[in-house]
């Protein structure tokens, strides 16, 4: 028995997902999809898009790690150093951090561009006499922009799990001989692993699937797989290829997430 929400879930998420998965084994002949069971779409994905795939996983990993670390520091500061203002501070900061996706992309273009704020400042201060081009149109700009976009999404789950960490436990650990590092590693982090994993998973999957940010601030050498997938669907109408690429990045991404989860599991108490 499934309720209405179950039906909606099936219809909106599971069905298209399952359909795409099936399509990834089909063929495309003259703009027509032909049912089949072939792995050629996958082998072509690996052969033709191996580099964008690897690059996407690397940059998404970097973004997810950076976002999760920043979110953790941020949530930690609010949780343990803001006292009774914690909730108000969290609310205000999240409000300012949230904001349209495109708005943030343009904001960073405005800051990092050759005629942007950063260059104007450097020129005015006389530190450089030509606008620097190293700020934008490179992977770094993508990392900065996406991290800024993802931060509030990552702060929430981390803060939620940090809220459950009681001060008495931290004091007890110190009392038993743990220095700051051990308290952090043995008591704080293990208790908020679910929040950390949620933040990392969100950030990683969203970053790995993004194709708008690299297009606007990434420059010609930032080739992320999302961009190519979008092309397969919208320009070439090669659904089997697009689907195979999607499931390849999804599979690789989930494998990396599983690996991270396993690595963090080393922090579980013995």
């Amino acid at each position, binding site marked *: 028995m499934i309720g209405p929400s179950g039906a909606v879930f099936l219809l909106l998420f599971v069905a298209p997902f399952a359909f795409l998965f099936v399509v990834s084994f089909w063929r495309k002949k003259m703009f027509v999809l032909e049912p089949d069971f072939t792995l050629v779409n996958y082998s072509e994905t690996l052969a033709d898009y191996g580099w964008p795939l690897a690059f996407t996983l690397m940059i998404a990993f970097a973004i997810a790690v950076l976002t999760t670390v920043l979110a953790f520091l941020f949530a930690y500061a609010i949780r343990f150093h803001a006292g009774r203002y914690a909730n108000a501070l969290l609310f205000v900061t999240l409000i300012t951090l949230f904001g349209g996706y495109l708005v943030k992309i343009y904001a960073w273009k405005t800051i990092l561009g050759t005629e942007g704020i950063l260059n104007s400042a450097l020129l005015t201060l006389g530190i450089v006499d030509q606008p620097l081009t190293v700020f934008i149109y490179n992977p770094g700009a993508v990392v900065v922009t996406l991290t800024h976009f993802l931060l509030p999404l990552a702060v929430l789950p981390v803060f939620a799990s940090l809220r459950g960490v009681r001060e008495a436990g931290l004091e*007890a650990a*110190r*009392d038993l001989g743990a220095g700051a590092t051990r308290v952090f590693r043995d008591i704080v982090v293990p208790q908020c692993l679910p929040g950390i994993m949620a933040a990392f998973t969100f950030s990683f999957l969203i970053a790995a699937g993004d194709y708008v940010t690299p297009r606007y601030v990434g420059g010609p050498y930032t080739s992320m797989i999302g961009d190519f997938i979008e092309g397969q669907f919208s320009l070439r109408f090669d659904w089997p290829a697009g689907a195979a690429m999607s499931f390849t990045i999804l599979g690789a991404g989930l494998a990396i997430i599983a690996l991270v989860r396993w690595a963090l599991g080393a922090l579980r108490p013995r």
Partner: protein
Amino acid sequence: MTTVSGGGPGGATPLVRLRGLSKKFGDVAAVQPLDLDIFAGDFFALLGPSGCGKTTLLRMVGGFTPPSTGTVEIDGQDVTRLGPEQRPTNMVFQGYGLFPHMTVRQNIGYGLRIAKASDAEIAERVGAIMTLVRIGELAERRPDALSGGQAQRVALARALVMRPRVLLLDEPLAALDLKLRKQMQEELRRIHQSIGGTFVFVTHDQGEAMGLANRIAVMEAGACVQEGGPEEIYLRPKTRFVSSFIGEANMLAGERRGGTVTLRAGIAFTDAGPDGPVVLVVRPEAIRLDGGTAGLGTTGRLDDVVFLGPYVRYRVTLASGEEIAAHSADTGRRAGMAVGAAVQIGWEAADHRVVAGT
């Protein structure tokens, strides 16, 4: 080998020596500068009403709260500037502070693991301490699956397994219901005797302090107002506050002039001391009804007689309007006492204390 009472003053050097120790939070003087000595083997109580600074004082000893002034010395070493991880103390926190992501066994073994004890040693010491506090069967549980009493024992075991020079306990029994509290009180006494350690605990319950401690420091508004053995504090309270806080006490107002105290209740006697308002403190069990002979006395109206098992409690109103409670173990005599009748009350001068104040 059991240690029932500590060294006490006059013994060897104190294990814990506090000098001029105080703490201010902004404008609030949580603890006023105080000196305190705690000796090896002591079961020491910091007793006082809620908010009087007991926890703050204990936390300064444990290294959790940096003092505003003064020093903490443990075992002859000045530890004032050391954090809790560097002090030979361990604490049982009021909320227990168990690690929710660890099993009971992991909780108890954590300190030893930090100290880099071998797995074999950890297993042995954790096992032994779990037997001592009788929680052997809880080893693989998580804290959220423990009752209050069980969590209390785990917290105790986790601190004791470190073999602290001084064990600090913050209101160790406050969260337990009455029956458990009595049981844990016995348990704490047994454990203290069997390991012969030094325990310092905070409580607002005078019965608990009397029942457990061999020395008690009574605190009032951040100051230590009296320190001594339970008997001394009960029988010779130095201030009105101490006498009212410890056990039940009758208080009679009066005034001292030239070495003579005159009570409002109409009793006068000689008692050396400075002139001014005084309060006479006398315990209910020291009051005799119709005693007649020596000592001090007056008459009053018997208002109430309650049979309480081991003793009978009488309530008498004096001419001054003040009330006196008297406890008598002679439970057979109440038959002849009529409520509303006049009775003679009296006590021996040796049984009362006169303290300055109103």
